[in-house]
């Protein structure tokens, strides 16, 4: 059984067609990297997987269950699908530890005491046990994103979605977040990552999806994709990004 399947997903905002028939599957242990220019619909696609946006038509199937507006199933799916946002979205009124613990309390029904113990383990995992008592405003961008990753991990998700997790970071802080993501990859976790970090895509991704204008234009393994993109626009996109880096 695939972890996630999308069947002919369409989405418009008013007259603007953002997704024009998206099909793909994610198998357990895969690390799918989604590339594409701004406005391609990458964030919208991720948000639809988590039902933060509702598709106009098409199907999202998660662990064999159709997500079709049933509130209970959606909440179940969300609790098993981590979401790491570009702007971290930590709860600013809670300390780092409680940011990680609150999902366990509210969704998994654990006591605060037990939840905090578990949360501490995950903060250790992302190297931030010493910041447990800090509020988000007392953390650097890289630290905030690592807490956000710990928050997602604590729920023991079947799959984690990352929407440009390093785009809002100071260049000097990108590395620490990518390191954590690489360690998750080594554990064999299922991940979908929207990013502009070509190095990460190349070395960690097991599959690259190139999106533009609401469509998937190319889908291939990383070596294949970076060596010889079949699609002309994908090629130009990769070149432009690599140029920017150099």
């Amino acid at each position, binding site marked *: 059984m695939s972890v996630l399947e999308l069947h002919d997903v369409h989405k418009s905002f008013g007259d603007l067609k953002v997704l024009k028939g998206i099909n793909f599957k994610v198998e357990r242990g895969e690390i799918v990297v989604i590339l594409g220019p701004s406005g391609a619909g990458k964030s919208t696609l991720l948000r639809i997987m*988590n039902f*933060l946006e509702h598709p106009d038509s098409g199907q999202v199937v998660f662990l064999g269950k159709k997500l079709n507006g049933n509130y209970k199933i959606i*909440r*179940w799916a*969300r*609790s*098993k*699908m*981590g*979401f790491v*946002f570009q*702007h*971290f*979205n*930590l*709860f*600013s*009124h809670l300390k780092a530890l409680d940011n990680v613990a*609150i*999902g366990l309390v*509210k*969704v998994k029904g654990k006591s605060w005491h037990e939840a905090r113990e578990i949360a501490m383990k995950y903060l250790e995992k992302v190297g931030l046990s010493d910041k447990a008592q800090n*509020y988000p*405003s*007392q953390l650097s961008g890289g630290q905030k994103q690592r807490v*956000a990753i710990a*928050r997602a991990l604590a*729920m023991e998700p079947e799959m984690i979605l990352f929407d440009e997790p390093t785009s809002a970071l100071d260049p000097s802080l990108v590395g620490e977040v990518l390191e954590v993501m690489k360690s998750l990859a080594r554990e064999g976790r299922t991940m979908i990552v929207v990013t502009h970090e070509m190095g990460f895509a190349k070395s960690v991704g097991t599959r690259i999806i190139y999106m533009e204008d609401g469509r998937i234009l190319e889908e291939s393994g990383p070596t294949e994709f970076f060596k010889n993109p079949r699609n002309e626009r994908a090629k130009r996109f990769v070149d432009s990004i690599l140029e920017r880096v150099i």
Partner: protein
Amino acid sequence: MCRRSEGGMKGFRIARRLLTAAGIFALAAVGYVLIGKVYPFNWGLVLRYYRLFLMGLFVTMKISLISIVISFFLGLLFALMRKSKIEFFEDIGGLYVWFFRNTPLLVVILLTYYGVGTIVNLDRFWASVIALSLFEGAYITEIIRSGIEAVPKGEIEAAKSLGFTNFQVFASVVFPQSIRIALPPLIGQFVSLIKDSSLASIIALGELTMMARQVGTRTLASFESYLIVAFLYIAITTIISTLGRYLERRLAIP
């Protein structure tokens, strides 16, 4: 070192405030003596009626406290309605705010007592509580609404993405943050409410202002009675603001 200099700053601020207070007090004393040449103050006469002032103070505090609680919950309820996805609720919330923000409180009190009060049996006290709560609730609705709107959308989505129910999103993320944002204007509104309660004297509710008028009429020493009442209002509202600032500091997030 740093701490001592902070302490020094604080000491300086207290000294400056004391100096200001002393200056104002001196000015007031001079003014009092000058006015006294034209208007012979007779405090003894007025203070003989201290029981009336205390009764008035008690009624004012009772009506204010009850109305603060009710108006807060009305404000919360209607703010949620205004933010509701159900258009009917949204419209009701809008209508409520529109009506009470565009009607003078005096008229609301008269309407409640002489209007509603003739249909259902309402005494002066509860008519005043209802009028005051409904009126201030409209302002509190807007204060809480803007507090809710100030909560970052991303945090709401983060909570949803963990699998929170809508109620959990509100109770664990939206409410604790919006109440912190709304606290200073909320306290300001509660202070207004206390002062506005003086309008209940129009339906002869025996609160502070009404009592001052009574004492004034009986003793012909209105100036003194109203000065006492002004002082008592200032005392209550200052206590409320101070409590509010304390709460703000307690709840502050770094």
